[in-house]
C-alpha cells in the first residue's frame, strides 16, 4: 500500500484552514459593522444609584471627552448641554451610568502592592439621534498597582475610546 507523504497532509490541512478563514470573513465583517457619525455629544456621568465622589465624576467626564477626541473618529465633539449639538444632523450621544465604585487606597497599594485597588464600573451607551442604542457595554476602570485613585477614570475612558474605535 502506498503511503501518503507527511508533507501533503500538512498542505491539505493548511488549505482547509485557508478556505475556512475565507468562509468566516463575511460573517466577521458583519459582526464588526461600523457606524458613521460626524459628531458626538458626551453627556454628564449619571450616578444616581451609586455614590461617586464629585472629583471622580468630573474626572471621568473630562477624560471621556479627552479620550474620545483622541480617537479622531468624529469631526466635532460636544459637551453636555452645549448649544449647537441640536443642529447636528449626524450626531450620536454617549451616555454613561455608574454601576459600581470602590475607592481604594494609594498608600495601601504602594505599601502592599496587592491591596487597595480602586475600581469603577460604568454602563456605556452610544445612541443615535432617534435614541436607538448602537453600543451597549459595561466597562470597568481600575488602578491595581501604581498611580493615584483618579487614574481609574483615565483607564476607564481609554477602554471606552477603544470601544468607539471598534464601532466607528
Amino acid at each position, binding site marked *: 500500500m502506498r503511503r501518503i507523504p507527511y508533507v501533503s497532509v500538512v498542505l491539505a490541512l493548511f488549505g482547509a484552514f485557508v478556505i475556512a478563514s475565507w468562509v468566516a470573513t463575511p460573517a466577521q465583517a458583519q459582526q464588526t459593522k461600523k457606524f458613521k457619525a460626524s459628531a458626538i455629544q458626551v453627556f*454628564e456621568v449619571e450616578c444616581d*444609584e*451609586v*455614590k461617586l*465622589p*464629585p*472629583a471622580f*465624576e*468630573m*474626572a471621568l*467626564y*473630562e*477624560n471621556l471627552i479627552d479620550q474620545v477626541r483622541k480617537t479622531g473618529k468624529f469631526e466635532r465633539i*460636544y*459637551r*453636555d*448641554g*452645549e*448649544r*449647537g449639538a441640536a443642529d447636528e444632523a449626524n450626531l450620536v450621544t454617549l451616555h454613561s451610568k455608574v*454601576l*459600581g*465604585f*470602590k*475607592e481604594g487606597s*494609594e*498608600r495601601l497599594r*504602594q*505599601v*502592599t502592592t496587592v491591596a487597595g485597588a480602586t*475600581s*469603577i*464600573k460604568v454602563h456605556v451607551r452610544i445612541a443615535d439621534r432617534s435614541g436607538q442604542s448602537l453600543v451597549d457595554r459595561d466597562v*470597568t476602570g481600575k488602578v491595581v498597582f501604581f498611580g*493615584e485613585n*483618579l487614574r481609574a477614570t483615565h483607564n476607564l475612558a481609554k477602554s471606552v475610546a477603544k470601544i468607539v474605535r471598534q464601532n466607528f
Partner: protein
Amino acid sequence: MAKPLQGILLVAGCLLACPTASVVAQEPVATSNVVHVLGLEGVKKKIKGKLFVSSGEVRFEAGTAKAEVAMASIQDIFTNADNKRLIGGKLGMLAMFAPYESDRFLSLFRKGIDVLTLKYRDAKGALHGVIFILPKGQAPLVKKQMVAQGAHASIPVEEEGQKPDRKQERKP
C-alpha cells in the same frame, strides 16, 4: 468758618475711603502651590501655579499659561481631603530602585492635601469640570471666598468633609 472745615473733612474722607475701596474691590485673593489636575483648556495637566479668586472670576496662572472661569458660571464647588506621598516626583521614582523595599517604607510618610472640584458651564452652555490640588486646609477657605463672590455651591462649606454614607457604595 464751617465751610472750609467741611471741605477739608470731605477731601480727607475721600482720600481715606477711595484707595481702600479700590483695593478691596480689585485685589484678588491668591493661593499658591496649587496643582491643576485636569479640566482647564490651554493649561497643562499636573502643572503647579497660583489660584486667584476675585470678584468676577477664578483665575489660574502657571507661568505663561492662564485660564479663567467666570464666577457666575460656576454651578457647584466640592472640597475633599486626601493625602499623597511625601517624597514624590523623580526622587520618588528613584526610591523604587532602592534596596530592602525602602520605597514601601517611604510610602508610609505622607502629606495631607485638599482637592477642589469645580463644575461650571461656559457661554455655550457646555458643562466643564476642573480639579485642583491645594495645600492642606486651603480648599474650604477658597470655597468660602468663591461663595462670597457669587459662586454657587450645593453643599455648604461647614457640611463638607463629612464621610459619605458607606451603605450607598457598591462594589463593581
